[in-house]
């Protein structure tokens, strides 16, 4: 099916998804202080509504929504496009951001105004816009700008507290991400030089296996891998995600890395749909497998809870990349390939909810215990029963326990790998699952233990935020029908 690049009904919604945060950001910056928080809440709420409206519109029309900026057609104009995976990721992003905003209200609203508070709320608004720009962009250069926006939002989030360790982590993150950006930009230049177009849909029609296209996409993918922190390019992720304030860690781990992965999917499935059948996909799969094994093993060895969660992110990202060699294949595999596609996206979404829940729970635990050493978490289960439950549910989703969304994701990927004769990925996934069991149970056993001195029972409000996020991950497994059909809309086959 070839898509026509013209405005579709509902396309205007896409513009609002970008304009609202941009306007909100300016407003918040000017208003300052507590007003910034209110603006952020308003933006997050509007974005939630918008993303659901977009998902509905995609669902109703059964095809991608397209908006041409200013009515100009590509190659000169710039198109915004929302297909099923964009819509699903936007909804996930909006929900996680809303939850994080509710959670962070306590941390970032000091009575005396601090710079960190204003920065946080502004960054939260900007993040919402940057994520949407990644999900909606159909123009490679536009996507570059979106990527950079995302980096500029993510880096300050890492070092909000201004401690030397976090500053160093942020600088490492920024510099490594910049190499990735330049590689991406180099690819963009090559594409423009070869085809005089940057619109993904247009380019798809123009590329016929020229070497320049392959070189360009290899550079762009490598750049995005550096920004996704896929093993062995993970140097910046553990310290950046583990030392940031919990609310920031949650969005970094749950959302920001997913956006980069999303772009890789765009390149490999929308821009050049034949790529994923070649040996390059196996390389990405192999790196993903390495990430699963390495990340899980290191997560098992961490003494600090937030580092454990960060390494677990490393491992869970690996599962996403297994989708690339699996979500393609000859015609007789199409059934499984669609399953792998759904499975990979479910993994992205379920992990988003679960990981946000876990980081937020870890934040509460650190507040109550005064530290985040796993061995010293005794009594937390009593002080924070709801948050511990949320952590457990999130963890079980990572581990792939039914009926969670994580289970369904892994089940679909596993069946696809066996059915397509690529059983080695299944072995890696199962080993990863067993190790995930190890590190989740290790944390839970410590939180359930009796503490020598009882900890104060914490207020419930923010704990319910954690639980709600974990339940979202669970709900995906219980009601998968709608989301899985949505994810197939606008998918480009080879």
């Amino acid at each position, binding site marked *: 099916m070839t898509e026509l690049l013209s405005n579709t009904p509902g396309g205007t919604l896409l513009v609002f998804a970008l304009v609202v945060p941009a306007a909100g950001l300016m407003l918040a910056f000017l208003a300052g202080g507590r007003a910034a928080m209110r603006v952020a809440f308003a933006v997050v709420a509007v974005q939630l509504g918008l993303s659901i409206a977009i998902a509905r519109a995609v669902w109703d029309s059964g095809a991608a929504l397209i908006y041409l900026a200013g009515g100009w057609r590509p*190659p000169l104009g710039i198109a915004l496009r929302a297909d099923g995976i964009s819509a699903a990721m936007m909804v996930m992003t909006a929900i996680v951001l809303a939850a994080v905003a509710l959670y962070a209200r306590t941390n970032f609203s000091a009575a005396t105004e601090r710079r960190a508070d204003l920065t946080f709320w502004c960054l939260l608004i900007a993040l919402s816009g940057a994520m949407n720009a990644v999900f909606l962009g159909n123009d490679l250069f536009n996507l570059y700008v979106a990527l950079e926006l995302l980096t500029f939002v993510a880096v300050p989030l890492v070092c909000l507290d201004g401690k*030397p360790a976090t500053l160093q982590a942020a600088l*490492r993150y920024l510099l490594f991400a910049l*190499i990735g950006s330049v590689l991406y930009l180099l690819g963009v*230049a090559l594409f*423009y030089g070869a085809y005089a177009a940057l619109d993904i849909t247009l380019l798809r029609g123009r590329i016929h296996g020229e070497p320049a296209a392959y070189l360009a996409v290899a550079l762009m993918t490598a750049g995005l891998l550096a920004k996704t922190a896929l093993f062995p390019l993970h140097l910046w992720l553990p310290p950046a995600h583990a030392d940031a304030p919990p609310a920031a860690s949650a969005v970094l781990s749950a959302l920001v890395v997913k956006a980069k992965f999303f772009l890789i999917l765009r390149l490999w499935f929308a821009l050049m749909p034949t790529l994923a059948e070649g040996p390059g996909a196996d390389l990405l799969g192999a790196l993903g497998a390495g990430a699963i094994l390495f990340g899980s093993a290191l997560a098992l060895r961490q003494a600090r809870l937030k580092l454990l969660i960060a390494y677990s992110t490393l491992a869970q990202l690996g599962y996403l990349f297994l989708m690339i060699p699996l979500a393609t294949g000859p015609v007789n595999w199409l059934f499984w390939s669609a399953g792998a596609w759904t499975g990979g996206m479910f993994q992205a979404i379920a992990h988003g909810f679960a990981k946000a829940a876990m980081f937020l729970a870890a934040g509460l635990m650190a507040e109550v215990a005064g530290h985040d050493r796993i061995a010293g978490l005794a009594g937390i289960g009593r002080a924070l029963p709801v948050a511990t439950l949320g952590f457990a549910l999130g963890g079980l989703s990572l581990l792939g326990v039914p009926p969670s969304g994580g289970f369904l994701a892994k089940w679909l990927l596993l069946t696809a790998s066996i059915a397509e004769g690529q059983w080695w990925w299944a072995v890696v996934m199962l080993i990863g699952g067993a190790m995930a069991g190890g590190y989740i149970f290790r944390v839970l056993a410590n939180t359930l233990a009796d503490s020598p001195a009882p900890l104060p029972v914490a207020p419930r409000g923010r704990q319910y935020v954690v639980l709600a996020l974990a339940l979202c991950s669970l709900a995906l497994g219980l009601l998968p029908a709608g989301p899985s059909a949505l994810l197939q809309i606008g998918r480009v086959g080879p």
Partner: protein
Amino acid sequence: MSADLYGLCGAALVGIGLYGLIVQPHPLRKILAFNILGGGVFLLFGVFARRGAALSLPGDPVPQALLITGLVVSFAATALAVALLLRLAAETGRARLDDE
């Protein structure tokens, strides 16, 4: 002819920048290397703009627009990196990326 020259220069800058980013230990040098790397890529955009001239245009305007946007982005990135570096140096008295 000159387009080829610019292209080669661009490629050389990319190589130098990449080398510097990976090998130079000091963050400030890395930031500079990033700018060299970026410069190389922008030069390539210039080359592609020049190609448009072959179509009896004075120059393809699209790469020029991209280039300007890219410059702004890379300026912002440099500013952010320098700000972080200054803050790091102020907090710790030294600026290093690796712990050892």
